């Protein structure tokens, strides 16, 4: 009978202090947990991304539809010989034209309420009886009008900053938006643009979330700040001409 003695080589593990081993184990466990969490995060990110994609698509269709509807109405009316009265504008963009010195207290208050605290500050305003009266009080200090989609988009994308923790934070990613406006169903830039342009239910939340736009002086200059637009100047309601101005100010 042969009895084989297996020669077992004693493998000596390198002596490592216990604390190090504990730390390593902890690190590995932690990493495992992190990866699991991260996988979830990535998944949610993917979901959000598809959502934003779908929304953007939907909105474009919506805008196009609206435009075409208006055109169609006009054409139909023209055919019949009738007249189409377009709805009054519901959205305005208001820019503060003048500085902060020697401002009448009433005007000062109105401008404060609009958050127009600095020259060339701009805000989106929902037009109703109340706000229109306010705009009338502050008229010599502001220039306002009805922005179109491109203007709204450009403003939000290029000059859009958020009010986060009382800080002016750039709109760098959609996560910021979804964090603060998510519960209103607004998760991306396109949502913001849509909400503003169509003056939706959450218009005030969205515009309040946005810091007042800080615009440039217009390239090519003003006409005459001390006069009403109608008089060849700049202040007051210039309706659709605001888009031309903003093109030069954004």
């Amino acid at each position, binding site marked *: 009978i042969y009895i084989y003695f297996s020669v077992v080589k004693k493998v000596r593990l390198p002596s490592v202090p216990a604390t190090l081993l504990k730390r390593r184990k902890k690190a590995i466990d932690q990493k495992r947990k992190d990866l699991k969490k991260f996988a979830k995060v*990535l998944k949610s990110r993917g979901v959000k991304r598809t959502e934003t*994609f779908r929304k953007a698509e939907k909105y474009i269709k919506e805008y196009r539809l609206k435009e075409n509807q208006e055109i169609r109405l006009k054409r139909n009316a023209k055919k019949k010989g009738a007249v189409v009265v377009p709805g009054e504008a519901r959205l305005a963009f208001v820019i503060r034209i003048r500085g902060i010195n020697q401002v009448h207290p009433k005007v000062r208050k109105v401008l404060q309420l609009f958050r127009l605290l600095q020259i060339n500050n701009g805000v989106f305003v929902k037009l109703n009886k109340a706000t229109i009266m306010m705009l009338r009080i502050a008229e010599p200090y502001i220039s306002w009008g009805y922005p179109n989609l491109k203007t709204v988009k450009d403003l939000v*994308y290029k000059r859009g900053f958020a009010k986060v923790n009382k800080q002016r934070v750039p709109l760098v990613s959609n996560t910021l938006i979804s964090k603060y406006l998510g519960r209103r169903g607004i998760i991306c830039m396109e949502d913001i643009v849509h909400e503003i342009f169509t003056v939706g239910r959450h218009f005030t939340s969205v515009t309040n979330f946005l810091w007042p736009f800080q615009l440039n002086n217009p390239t090519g200059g003003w006409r005459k700040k001390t006069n009403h637009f109608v008089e060849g100047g700049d202040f007051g309601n210039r309706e659709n001409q605001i888009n031309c101005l903003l093109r030069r100010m954004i």
Partner: protein
Amino acid sequence: MSKMATVNARPLVSVHQNGTITESSISLPAIFTAPIRPDVVNFIHDQIAKNTRQPYAVSKDAGHQTSAESWGTGRAVARIPRVRGGGTHRSGQGAFGNMCRGGRMFAPTRVWRRWHRKANVTQRRYAMVSAIAASGSPALVMSKGHIIQETPEVPLVVGDKVEEAKTTKEAMMFLRKCRAWSDVLKVYKSKRFRAGVGKMRNRRRIQRTGPLIVYNKDQGLVKAFRGIPGADTIQVKKLNLLKLAPGGHVGRFVIWTESAFRKLDKLYGTWRKPSKLKANYNLPTPKMTNTDLMRIIQSDEIQNVIKRSNRKVLRRNPKLNPLTNKKYMGKLNPYANVERKLSQHYQKIKIERKEISRKKKTGELPARISKEEKARTAIPPKMKEPREKVEPKKIKFIGKKMKRTKKTKSGDAAAKNGKLHKALLKPGKPKPGASKGVKTGKTKPLPSKDSKTGKAKPLPSKDGKTKPLPTKDGKTGGTKPVPSKAKQVGKPKIETSKPATPKPSQPKSTPKQDKPKQAAIKK
């Protein structure tokens, strides 16, 4: 160190004699485990050191031994008091002021300056205790600068015979046997002149401090050690902080005689028993029972409860203009790039149409356009192109068959570089789709359907070009590439056993085509 207290036994200190360890040993007095407070020692040392000062002052009349009076204004001289009289240089000279020659100094030093300082007894004792405790720590003693590399033990306890030493020679021999002589040598080497004016003030020479011998009964020891530079002697009952912590710094090299060492417990007490020789005194209690801070921090009790360190580096995310920066725009609005490409495409079509209408007008083209042409311009052309059916070419395999090696699954996953994290997710279990690769990067948005045709719209992709969706065969709209013949040169001609079944030549990597297959199947 109160761990010692909890263990109820203190370490033994052996008594040294003539360079050897005797049989007798003493348990370490509790004082050596008392808290070491260098701040207390420093403060008390400052206070006590002031108590041996001798007053100095200027003479009390200095500068006032004149009857000078100011001449007042109107005499074209400064208004300082001037010495009266005449007949000497001194007359008319300014007097009294600190700015005057021969005048009194500013704030003349006075004898009644507060030279001595009171120090609370308990605080003094605290300092003493700290200093003694520090002398029991070899690290502190070495950091003070004493040469104790050779000494057999710290604290160094020595037989009582030393107390009977009569001659300096004996003392020297004793120190040699104790291996404390190198400390004395250092003193010798450090003998030098004082820097500064103290030289002329009877403080000409300076030297290091050497060992301190603490004895119980002086039977000649003091005189014997008088001649050894640097060595100091002190009786146990009259311990002096100025000697135990010279300069206010703890950690003097102390040599105890046996009887002196034994007295320490009686003198200062242990925490259990108050001091016998001092009225109403017990050792100071430490603020922390376990002073090993690192050990405390690394202990399980704390490590399990502390929050994770936040290694996140918060970087400023610069705002880039999405209107000019396509990548950035894509980040904010994933549909934007698609939109742009579509609009570009439609613009092209528009231009084409214009061309067509222009050509119609000029007569180059017929007035009517065929349905095909209309259809082509209405919808993105790529979608409407019929998918070319490419017959797989019958190619004879001349050459070795490529063996498809199976990728090692998770058994070795841990060993692979960069795949460690996958192993961690499910330790030890083989992942079915591991070789395909779990996509943890960007997830493609699901393709949306075009409104006009019921078919899916092209996927938005990284480079902005819309790729046509793959069919179920896994083929994309394009021709199959032919394998290069260069590979087949120089290899033995081995024809395959099944020439009839066409082997699709896919010299380009298969996994890319597998993925859309998967996507197609998943749908």
